[in-house]
């Protein structure tokens, strides 16, 4: 899974630079995308009905 520039910057800010193997960086990105998706769904389900999109 290729990193987009924002994800590359995020990893760099976390301290996961080019010294980290590319497959591990890719796995971290995949895990973060997944938890962000789970988080969005959870936040959406907690919002009052009128606030849901």
């Amino acid at each position, binding site marked *: *899974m290729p990193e987009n520039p924002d994800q590359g910057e*995020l990893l760099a*800010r*976390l*301290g*996961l630079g080019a010294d*980290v*193997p590319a*497959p*591990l960086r*890719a*796995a*971290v*990105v*995949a*895990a*973060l*995308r*997944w*938890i*962000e*998706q*789970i*988080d*969005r*769904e*959870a*936040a*959406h*389900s*907690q919002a009052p009905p009128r606030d849901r999109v």
Partner: protein
Amino acid sequence: MRPLAVDLVLLRGQAPDLPLAVGRILAARVIERHGEQGIINLAGALLTAELPDEVQAGDRLRLVVRETTADRVVLQMMQSPPQPGMVPPPVEVPLPNGGRIALLGREQSARGEDGEAAKVVTLRYEGPGVGTVELRVALDAALVHVRAALAEGAPLTRAREGSSALRAALAAAAGRTAEVELVARPDPLDVYA
């Protein structure tokens, strides 16, 4: 200073809820010492450990979790009780959704049966929907393994519903067989006496 290694199975048998995330600080007491080995009380669990030379019976220790593998936990003794600001907090990166991510640790685990050491990254994600999540991503030549610890209840249930998607995404991203482990996050206590 030489680290201490304790048996994970014994520790889990006596203290199943003890948080063992990398970077966690634990308090222990040396019960007795015989040569290089001794017995320590770690969160109520009595464990045999190989002790550094300078440690004596009765000493109180502050131990930092450096590494966890399938069968042991490696603990590093802190030189003295931590002072405010002595242990730098992890760098937190804010997210557009109001959440935050922090890197808790990077390490290389002990070699497995195939002689291959896994590279491991541990992160903490805090989001408005799921709360705090600890993510441990480990990669070796054949496998990518993610362990996610979420709060019991809706966050863990939702994560379990999405676990197959994570497994597929990991396999595609890392080009390896993917394993996903989802567990309930223990109470966020930082120090056990």
